[in-house]
């Protein structure tokens, strides 16, 4: 990009300064503090001195911590592939202008824009032991399915996964659809002339075209499922029963704000940061490599 020489060094910094100061105060400052907290011994919301890595060791010896990490893994493994498969199918059909496609695209995005609390609260009602879902099952002779979806161990996490899939389909769908509309129709026409079948076009044109978008989606969703689930967990199950639906983010909340184990909670926080940064770093690295490759190809 040709940049004017008139643009001096100081002017650029002045333009970003207000944003930079606020971002440093809201992100860098607390994260730095959290690191300090994580190597201190805490008693009743007060630090009582440096204690090295004791908090981290305590964390590594806590089986609830492993259960929590496992739950994170289960949520990611449950939500991401399901959403991808469903939204890819939907996107392909909507892109092909199936009857009713405009109504569907409007409807499917409603769960995405709904505030998390609204979705979480209504689904809590729906999944209630005496709620509509169980009433529905009983009405249609499926009484054996009647159970406490959010209160029974083994089902609470499953219910959260199902709720997240339900809410997130629209986002992935729109992402894939947006990418599909930028694909050159000529490629499909050429394939048709060569006698490619519908499924061949799907697997040899659509999927490869969408590969980079899918990987973007996976990163966004993995981060989202690691770091932005508080509303759901807090409203639907509060991490329970026991720790059976606690995720790392909620584990931090429980330890810091509920159990007042600031040191342990902060150590868990540092682990979440490291995981997040590894994912983001890989993603940035991969996308830079991809754009360099695209640059070479041109």
């Amino acid at each position, binding site marked *: 990009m*040709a*940049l*004017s020489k*008139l*643009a*001096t*060094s100081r*002017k*650029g*910094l002045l*333009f*970003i300064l*207000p*944003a930079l100061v*606020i971002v440093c105060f*809201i*992100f860098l*400052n*607390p*994260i730095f503090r*959290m690191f300090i*907290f994580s190597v201190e011994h805490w008693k009743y919301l007060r630090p009582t001195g440096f204690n090295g890595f004791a908090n981290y060791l305590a964390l590594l010896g806590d089986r609830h911590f492993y259960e929590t990490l496992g739950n994170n893994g289960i949520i990611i493994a449950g939500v991401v592939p399901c959403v991808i498969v*469903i939204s890819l199918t939907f996107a392909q059909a909507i892109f092909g202008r199936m*009857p*009713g496609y405009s109504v*569907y695209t409007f409807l*499917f*995005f*409603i*769960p995405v*824009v*709904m*505030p998390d*609390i*609204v979705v979480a*609260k209504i689904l*809590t009602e729906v999944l*209630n032991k005496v*709620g*509509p879902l169980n009433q529905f099952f009983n009405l249609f002779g499926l009484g054996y399915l009647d159970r406490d979806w*959010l209160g029974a161990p083994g089902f609470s996490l499953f219910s959260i996964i199902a709720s997240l899939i339900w809410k997130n*389909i629209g986002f992935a769908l729109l*992402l894939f659809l*947006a*990418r599909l509309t*930028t694909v050159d129709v000529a490629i499909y*026409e050429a394939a048709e002339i060569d006698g490619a079948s519908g499924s061949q076009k799907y697997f040899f044109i659509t999927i490869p075209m969408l590969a980079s978008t899918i990987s*973007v989606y996976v990163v966004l969703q993995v981060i989202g499922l690691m*770091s*932005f689930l*508080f509303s759901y967990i807090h409203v*639907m*199950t509060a991490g329970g029963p026991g720790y059976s639906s606690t995720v790392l*983010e909620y584990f*931090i*909340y429980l330890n810091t704000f509920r159990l007042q184990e600031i040191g342990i909670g902060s150590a868990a*926080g540092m682990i979440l940061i490291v995981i*997040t940064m590894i*994912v*983001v770093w890989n993603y940035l690295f991969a996308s830079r490599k991809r754009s360099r490759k695209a640059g070479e190809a041109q």
Partner: protein
Amino acid sequence: MGRKRKLTIGGMLLQIPFLLYSATIVAFCLLLVATPFRSTDDLARGILVRPNSFTLTNFADSWRNGLGTGVSNSMKLSVLTCLFTALLGGFAGYAFSFLRFRLRQGLYVFMYCGIYISTMLIALPLFLQYRQLGLVNSIFGALLIFIGLRLPFSVYLFKNFFDEFQIELIEAARIDGLSDMGIFFRIVTPLSVGVFSTVVLFNFTAVWSDYLIGLLFLQKQRLMTVMPMIMNIFGSGPMVTQATPLGQGFAGLLVSTLPVIIIYAIAKKHYVSGLMLGSVKS
């Protein structure tokens, strides 16, 4: 592809998953819309049974029990956050795209990382710090957090948009002697209404839908934001008993959903362009 519409068996089978998923969304919306209009006695029979009452008292009660306060606080915070993030994020995006300065790349990556940091991570250290500074239970304190939380994504959208901008326009304005401030307000802003709308849209929705920050930093009844207020009206706690004023809580849910859905219906294309700017392109 898809220019001919043929009714095939495959095409009809394909409608099944679409109809099923649509049915769940419609049912969800019906539940959201119908429940607050039903009386408490009616709701005690269960929320799936056919309604036999119609009442507006839930809205009045809910509004009086704090929903009104929550809506006005959230509205204030959302609008102010949009204003500041549009202005400061716009400046920063402008600098990252059009100006050259030391550490440009590094500072950009630093800000970019903020998009992915969990709010939970900053919540506790900031809370303890805010308590020392006397900023807990202050609208200003919460506003600062919201602006900070929303800036990285805003800067990211602005930068991506401005990168596609015609650099010749900027160069020409510079030769004509316009300052960078002048270029930003007179040349760039009028040509970037789209990205400003997108930023406002995403930030408004995010602040409006926030739960965690409101829950922790605005705990006084008169300062609470809309989502924590609704949970308060429900009587909070994950497990709802029959005693909870379900109608009032649902009135809150419906009222708090309306702005978001209205904005979505009006500005759907900005959502899409935001997604394009935000993820597809990179």
